[in-house]
């Protein structure tokens, strides 16, 4: 009898330990990134462009701006397609075709980003024989789609049916009832999905290797090869230079900050919906 309770206690403690390990590793990684990265974050790091090898200093401003442009463009592509598909699933989505779409969206979210990068390469880089920020945006948009679609469906589907029916009963068009009544009511959920999707691609690196390609210079034109913060962290990390390693840690710190802020905002958006 006592033994059983002892075993139960041990099991509880052991499983708690496992949860502690998982959370502890996050803390450990954060601690390292802050310890190694924080000293290197300064004004010239945030505003400068990379220096040539051997010249100390330099910054990642071109990468920050490049990431913003690539992700921004990806959002412009993915948001309408994703939201409209989400609306389709929530409002019209019955039957095998809709189920197939749901299934595809779920499966697409698990396709390795590198394969999607290859796809973007074959349709947007190879034909032009030219790396470009825009091709990276296409890859990112595809990565964002499943999240936007599924959270969009959930958010739109979460708006009570009577809201839409009420609007329709007043004689307005189905378009207006959806876009001006249902969608605004689902705003918080849609926002959450968008933020999570942006967070997901902000730290993404693999598809950039052969789409955006990276650049040492200021580049604001998305038809040219572009720098990206995540890509800079990667190239600096695997370089043989001590100075660049430190910049990689500092860049990682910025990336983590950006991604965490996006995640917290996403939670915040969702919470404001549920408390209302």
């Amino acid at each position, binding site marked *: 009898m006592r033994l*059983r309770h002892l075993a*139960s*206690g041990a*099991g*509880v403690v*052991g*499983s*708690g*330990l*496992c*949860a*502690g390990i*998982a*959370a502890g*590793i*996050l803390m450990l990684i954060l601690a390292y990134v802050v310890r190694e990265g924080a000293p290197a974050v300064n004004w010239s790091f945030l505003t400068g462009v990379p220096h040539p090898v051997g010249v100390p200093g330099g910054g990642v401003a071109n990468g920050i701006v490049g990431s913003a442009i690539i992700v921004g463009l990806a959002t412009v592509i993915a948001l309408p397609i994703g*939201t*409209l*598909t989400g609306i*389709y699933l929530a409002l019209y989505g019955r039957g095998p075709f809709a189920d197939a*779409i749901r*299934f595809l969206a779920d*499966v697409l*979210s*698990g*396709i*390795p*980003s*590198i*394969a999607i990068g*290859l*796809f973007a*390469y*074959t*349709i947007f880089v190879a034909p032009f024989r030219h790396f470009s920020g825009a091709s990276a945006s296409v890859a990112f948009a*595809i990565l964002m*789609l499943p999240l936007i679609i599924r959270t969009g469906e959930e958010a739109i589907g979460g708006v009570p049916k009577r*809201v839409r029916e*009420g609007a329709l009963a007043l004689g*307005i*068009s*189905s*378009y*207006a009832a959806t876009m*001006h009544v249902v969608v605004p009511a689902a705003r918080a959920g849609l926002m959450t999905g968008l933020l999570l999707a942006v967070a997901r691609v*902000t*730290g993404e*690196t*693999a598809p950039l290797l*052969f789409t955006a390609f990276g650049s040492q210079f200021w580049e604001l034109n998305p038809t040219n090869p572009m720098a990206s913060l*995540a890509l800079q*962290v*990667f190239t600096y*990390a*695997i370089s043989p230079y001590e100075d660049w*390693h430190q910049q990689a*840690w500092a860049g*990682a710190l910025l990336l*983590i900050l950006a991604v965490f802020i996006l*995640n917290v905002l996403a939670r915040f958006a969702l919470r404001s919906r549920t408390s209302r």
Partner: protein
Amino acid sequence: MVPFDRLEEAHARRSVLSDRSFIAAIYCATIVFVAVVVGLFVMLFAGSWPAIQSFGLKFFWTSSWNPVTSQFGALPMIYGTVVSSAIAILLAGFVGVYAAAYLADFAPRLVARPLSFLIELLAAVPSVVFGLWGLFVLSPVLRDRADPFLEAHFGFVPLFSGPIFGTSLLTAGVILAIMIVPTVCAISRDVIMAVLAEHREGSLALGATRWETMWRVILPGAKSGIFGACVLALGRALGETIATTMVIGNKPAIAASLFQPSYTLASVIANEFTEATTALYQSALIELGLLLFLVSMVVNGFARLLTWTVLRPSRGR
């Protein structure tokens, strides 16, 4: 609750777009989405056609990867991918499921919420950061401490013998494990909670301890969902690119020892694609991408089917 002010606004704007074109737009978006998924497959297949033609099925079971002689065999990468993912799922499955049990049932609310939050944040860390940490922190620790320990105590197993490299199959496996723990944990927790709601009180009322309830009643009931969570996490490990590339050593060879460098399907694409000078070389790399695509389609599809059957009714979707 119902935004009536918006109703008026909607009235005012109702003729902006006709219903028909709106519904057309919705269907267009949906079709674009389907086209993207189909296009993914078609383009990858078309890109790998030259390699498929010249190597056929031999591509998958020969192990010489030599761009100079245009000989391409994917076996070392398939081996590296399978073994690193297997290590990852063994470690992450164990830790993740127990952590999920703790978070779903045993933990006091005050502990469960922040712990869950931290584990979810772990999922948000970009993979390049995992790679960075793995390269500069984890791999030296494994090389100097853990690997020699394993070699001293389990050196009789070929897996844990031979010279030790910092960037190795084992390091990649451990990093992947860390990366997929949140996936295993979060989904398993949802599944366990769904089963708990039904069976917990009954089992406790029969006199089972909390652990016995979890171990003998809840976990068996949540089995297929947890299995689905693990398969899903496995899919993520198979396709993970950047972190693996940074810590696995990138050597296209099959070694018995886990302490040796290796290569994965994803990391060889990441490393060599921009340097692939010949059309056949590039095509061989795209074929690896196609293989990854197809494998993750199957793995993810399977996982979704498993978790859907458990989670669907409870969520009332």
